[in-house]
């Protein structure tokens, strides 16, 4: 089938099988390998993308489901060479070790911050609980989200 969608701000039109997994479209057809696959069954969250601003697991989505929609992947988070504030906070807080869960974590964390600019620890942990990380013990990831909130808050209300 022919599908068209917006990917990181750019219009994409492509011919694909309607049952092709979105994660394969991104990684294999479009070369956007920042989106990772850790399980293929919706359990680990490494393949998290934003679909119309909402987190979705691209390993469980099929081509037909993205027709006419807007997708953001990790490659679309940095704007004109500037890291997204959460990406920057992840770097600074030590939230990245092997880094394989990181793209999914960034997507999940960024989606949380869109909804809630001052989440509690528990809200952060809940929002990230669909994303498995095997390296960090999550602490520095949670720290990264908190640091990002703090910095964004300071930007808005300079002391």
């Amino acid at each position, binding site marked *: 089938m022919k599908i068209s969608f917006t990917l990181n701000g750019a219009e994409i039109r492509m011919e694909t099988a309607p049952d092709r997994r979105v994660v394969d479209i991104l990684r294999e057809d479009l070369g956007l390998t920042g989106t990772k696959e850790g399980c293929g069954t919706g359990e680990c969250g490494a393949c998290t993308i934003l679909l119309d601003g909402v987190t979705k697991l691209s390993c469980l989505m099929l081509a037909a489901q993205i027709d006419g929609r807007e997708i953001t992947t*990790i490659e679309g988070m940095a704007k004109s060479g500037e890291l997204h504030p959460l990406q920057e906070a992840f770097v600074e807080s030590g939230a990245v*070790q092997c880094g394989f869960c990181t793209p999914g974590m960034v997507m999940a964390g960024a989606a949380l911050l869109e909804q809630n600019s001052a989440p509690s620890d528990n809200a*952060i942990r809940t929002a990230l609980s669909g*994303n*498995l990380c095997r*390296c960090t013990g*999550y602490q520095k990831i949670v720290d990264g989200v908190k640091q990002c909130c703090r910095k964004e808050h300071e930007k808005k209300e300079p002391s």
Partner: protein
Amino acid sequence: MNDSQQVRLGERTSRFDAAAKVCGAEHYAIDHYPEGFVWAGARRAGVAHGLLRSVETAAAERIPGVLRVLTARDVPGTNRYGIIHKDAPVLADTKVRHAGDAVALVVAETKEALQQALAALIVVIDPLPPVCTVDAALAPDAPLVHEERTEGNVLVHAVIEKGNAAAAFAACAAVVETTFHTPVQAHAFLETENGLARSNEDGTLEMIVSTQAPFRDRFEISHALGIPFDRIVITAPYLGGGFGGKDGATVQCLLALAAVSLPGRWIKMVWDREENLIAGYKRHGARLEYRAGALGDGTLHALECRLYYDTGAYAHLGGEVLGLGMEHAAGPYRIGNAHIEGWCVYTNNPVAGAMRAFGVCQVSFAFEQIMDLLAEKLGMDPLAFRLKNALLKGDVNAASVRLTTSTGIVECLRKIGKHTLWLNREAWKAAAPRHKKRGIGLAAVWNAMGYGKNVRDSAIAKIALGEDGGFIVTNGVADMGQGNASTFAQIAAALLGQNAGRMRVIQPDTVSALPSGSSSAGRTTYAYGNALVKACEELKHRMINRAGLILFVDDDRDLRLVPGAVEHAPSGRTIPLDRLASFMKPEERISMHHFVTPVVTDLPDTGKGLAYGFPHLFFAYGAHCAAVEIDLLTGIIDVAAYATVTDGGRVLNPALFEQQIEGGVAQGIGYALMEECLAGEGILRTPNLSTYIIPTALDIPSIDTDWVETDETSGPLGMKGVGEIAMNGPLPAIANAVADALGTRICHAPFRPERILAAIRESML
């Protein structure tokens, strides 16, 4: 790290690799899709034990897009690999020994054709009775897992003897005896086993693999397939996790076999999560039978223990895993009399191999509960009892090795004793809400660093001054996520007085890098770092000398490296590094140096049967404290808070140090509460992440990470490895906290709610 920031040691700086990873720009092995690549996949036996009668390939071969269907008959060479014991077939020939054995290999143009072909293979196996437990394996009439090992299913049997344990119990005022069981754990790294291979016209075999040991992989492939090792070129990009599970061949031999059968094409193999769990390596499940005694004054006096490790179908490093468990079986304590006996046995279970804390977290569960049990019998405070017996530098440990290197367990214990979790424990416990009970538990742990005796542990570092005046470190030890590559850049930048922006690290490939061993055993930064320090010193020396020539100064001692330049301090004159580089010949700009990790020279007369990796000279130490709250109605344990103090020598970068400790604690909490590979008749019942459960952000508390800085004088800038130590603490600390809360002890991990509920019921009887 800010590119223009001067790099120092001991400072908290961000990792060099974080920016690319956080953008999704880092290319792991799995992210490579070369032009014209095709897919390879293995058909797994699905039967734990049986005679392989036939693999009918005709139907699979007829499927459009199928390029090759290979069976054992197509394997050139020995068709056997294994790090020490070459007992694992690339493709099963006469027999299958576990359900994850590969029986056929298919190469196809598309994933769809591959899946169809794998399903179309007709595999005929005559089942044999599977050997599923250690006891079944040791039974006199047990079926043989390896038919050629006519002496039975024991891979390694060994004894560590010190003093006279049997006689020493008579003098003990307190004696305890308990049997412990630890589960089979999966590494569950997020990037599953994968790689690419291409056989080139010039006879070389080019590979990109998610591997912890690219240099050793060449020998594994060479032995199994009869390909000269020097024709094999392996690149190891950053790994999406490893933890030991990518130390040893996974996809390597299969990919190489596929590549030589179809020259000229890139062949890609990716194990899905189910294949990872079924065919990938595991942590050894163990049964640990302990009897220990202490004198009336609280001196540990006697230990007898029998350790049984289930290595599954193939040896991998099972004997060495058992050996390290035995070496640590008495804990970080002085003890005069010990009889430590171990068996590592073959079964038809999934293959157990290397995993973070390599045999040590099993015995930690046992000895640290034994310590609490003895303290209770003696009426002593568990911390005071540990402190009284904790090893000091100069002491002789239970393996009869005199500790001559940094030994900080006493300092760790003292510091954890001052932590609020420990100090306020009674008040916190008393505040438990209704239907809940709280407990606090301690654990003192240790973990050897390095391969140990008889396994040369060495590294060769390479650093170059580039034409642009930047520096390139050629990493020789794969970075599986622990951040050694970043630490190498940090060490080099600090020693050369440079800013972060000038440093670049190339990940290992077997052509550019020099053999530096595997990414394992807490030895990565220690061994390569030591070599790198010397390589940097030599390069610096050379740069200063050549700068002196260009600046025409009398005394090189007046020259120093500053960010981007060499400066003549008295005159303030400088020569920029790119200019200096242009004056130097290419071979002068490259500096290489090697390091061999020291081993115990005063060898104890014990440990018979432990041929490789016994004993060790260096150890990291740690003291852990867990606070748990148990729901008496559901049996669910909440780890409410967790604190650690670690002795890893000098801390080069607190951020990376904390990462290792926090990550180890999280894996340890998973091991304690939920993780268990369950197999029935050798068939894995937990083949995905909804049945094999690992902790999420909601399961791990905030972890308080602290350290004591001993100076490991042999280490690069005083450090020693801390990759494994933290994994050892959570299971025993949580076990002791659960016993503290419930008044009853659970000796069978993990502590899933049903086990806790059973213990609660028992305690109420």
